[in-house]
């Protein structure tokens, strides 16, 4: 990459982010839009990026590699400080000791999870799906909804506490769900899967095209997690985190936390924060949950959970 000017590449990436169609998007969404654009226009870019206006002295593969690395670094540098600070200051990892026989130092678990997030976030699909999680953290969604769920003691509370048999105070439950969120995106790492004597690198997105490998994928991803975090975090938590990517019908009865996080991460993935809501419009969360009720079977949401979340949003003007 000797012939590539880093400043020029930074300026080029900045130029792409400043495009009016991307400018107002969160950085993680912007990154995906840029990557999609590059993927779809490889042939045209091959010629264009080697013109004097761009990088005339380098090979296209080299340019492409440099571009994707620069893009990735820019995005990671932007989101990782937020995530590490959030994990450091806003999650109490001692909850793990309350729900398992393990008795690990919370600080060690915290550092391990910061390291884990730092590693998995290098994968682009993992990063993209962190947008919802960052929004949940940023806008305090778990604290808001969980407090209300625990006050109401209706369907979701019953599912979480009685059916899932996780009798925790609300603060601990919030920490528990936050830990699940930090782990859940591991499914977006591409892992090698052997099929028909061939090795494929697949992630959760690919599973929709080859659902027959879902079980195999689950087994492999769990073994990866066990290896990475198994010493500190109980298997139940790891499994629940992975299952929070599954549709309602693919979860077990006692996996209510997974079903709740599946809804919330979908809600906050494309979250748009409105400073001011147009007069005559419903509030953003109320709108989203109401629409989600109509699309519940398409997305695989638990309808009764949506109904309760809708009521909570309506009552609180969220």
């Amino acid at each position: 990459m000797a012939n590539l000017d880093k400043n020029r590449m930074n300026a080029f990436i900045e130029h792409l982010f400043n495009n009016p169609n991307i400018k107002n998007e969160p950085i993680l969404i912007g990154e995906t839009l840029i990557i999609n654009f590059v993927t779809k226009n490889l042939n045209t870019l091959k010629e264009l990026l080697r013109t004097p206006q761009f990088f005339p002295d380098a090979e296209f593969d080299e340019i492409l590699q440099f571009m994707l690395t620069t893009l990735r670094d820019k995005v990671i540098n932007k989101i990782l400080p937020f995530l590490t600070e959030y994990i450091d200051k806003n999650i109490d990892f001692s909850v793990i000791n309350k729900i398992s026989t393990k008795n690990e130092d919370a600080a060690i678990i915290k550092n391990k999870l910061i390291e884990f997030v730092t590693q998995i976030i290098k994968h682009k699909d993992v990063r993209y799906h962190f947008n919802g999680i960052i929004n949940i953290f940023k806008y305090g969604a778990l604290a808001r909804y969980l407090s209300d769920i625990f006050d109401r003691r209706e369907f979701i509370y019953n599912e979480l506490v009685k059916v899932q048999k996780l009798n925790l105070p609300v603060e601990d439950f919030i920490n528990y769900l936050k830990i699940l969120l930090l782990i859940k995106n591991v499914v977006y790492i591409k892992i090698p899967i052997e099929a028909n004597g061939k090795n494929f690198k697949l992630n959760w997105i690919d599973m929709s095209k080859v659902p027959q490998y879902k079980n195999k994928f689950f087994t492999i991803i769990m073994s990866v997690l066990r290896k990475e975090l198994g010493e500190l975090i109980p298997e139940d938590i790891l499994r629940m985190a992975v299952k929070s990517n599954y549709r309602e019908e693919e979860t077990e009865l006692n996996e209510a936390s997974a079903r709740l996080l599946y809804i919330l991460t979908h809600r906050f993935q494309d979250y748009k924060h409105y400073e001011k809501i147009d007069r005559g419009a419903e509030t953003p969360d109320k709108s989203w949950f109401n629409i989600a009720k109509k699309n519940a079977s398409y997305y695989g949401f638990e309808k009764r959970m949506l109904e309760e979340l809708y009521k909570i949003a309506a009552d609180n003007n969220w």
Partner: protein
Amino acid sequence: MKKFKFPDNFWENFILVSIFLVVIQTFLDDYSHYALWSVKARNILLITGFFFDLTFTIEFIVRSILAIRKKEFKLYFLYRRGWVDFLASIPLLLLNSGPSLYFLIRGYHSAGKATIGVLNVLKIVKAIRITRILRLIRIMKIFGKIHNAESKMAQRHTATIATTGVFTIVIILIIFSFFRLNLITNLYNEKREHYTKLITNIENINMDMDVPLRLLTFKLLSNDKNILKMYYINFLIFSNISEDKFQKYYAFDDYIIVKENEFKLYVDVTEINKEIASVNLENFFIIIFLVIAYMIFYTKHFVQTISDIVYIMYRGFTEDNYNLQIKIKKEYKEDEIYKLAEVYNDKWLPLKLKLKEEEKKKKESKLSIDDLLNFKV
């Protein structure tokens, strides 16, 4: 040297300020007659009124010329309330403030009997000054901002209904003003006849009883406060008002002169003028409050039940990330617009999100190659 240029909206703001002022002027014009302000103050108001009408006439002509040049005169006149601009300018200048100023400059008493008739007509025609209030509709966009009703549709609909209401009242007032013309003329004539008869009677008594005429007249009439001054063969018999006060507060139309034989009486008619002014003020406030009520209540109603809903749907149809539902008001849920909103909420938005999800799967991007071509380091 840098050439001075008015800001683009200078004239627009000038006209808007003029509209506010002309409404105040219209009120003060009648109020000054009601409260019997000094002649000087009333003349100033008359001259001000003339300049306002002149300004609006020039504005209407300029707007018309510009519209004709753009071949949009019909659009301007019929659909952009050019007809309101017309009604509140040229007819007022030609039928009200123009002739009034003309007589003020020329001098009323030198004008002759025909002129007196014209002046009486002018008093009645004053009713059409109320059309000036129609101009308030022009300032709706300011009201729109106050009321959060920037919607052009809301402004146009409120303007249409306000114009219809005001215009209907104005037409009725103009029609009735012709009847009032007769009524008011009769009031003046009755007063004139009353004092003519009184003088005739005094003369008869004088002949029968041989009492000195001037003494008799003084004894019988000097307590009548309606008589401002009385002359006999150009000699002042008595005056109920000082000359200074008379000059200051009594304009040509505040008194009538009754001449009978050698007598000349100045009879106060300000009570009649007060009555006319009070009717005019009443009409003024009816129309002002009607317009304001439309602006406040109807605009709010229209915005909340029509234009807000259309605006939210428009955003939902055109903006990728705008997915807020419309609040359906229970009391209006049978309205067509709310039925449409229900379809938007329950059909379109869920479909839109599904389509977006499918697009995500196709890994569509909002960037194009053209976006790269303008890259410069």
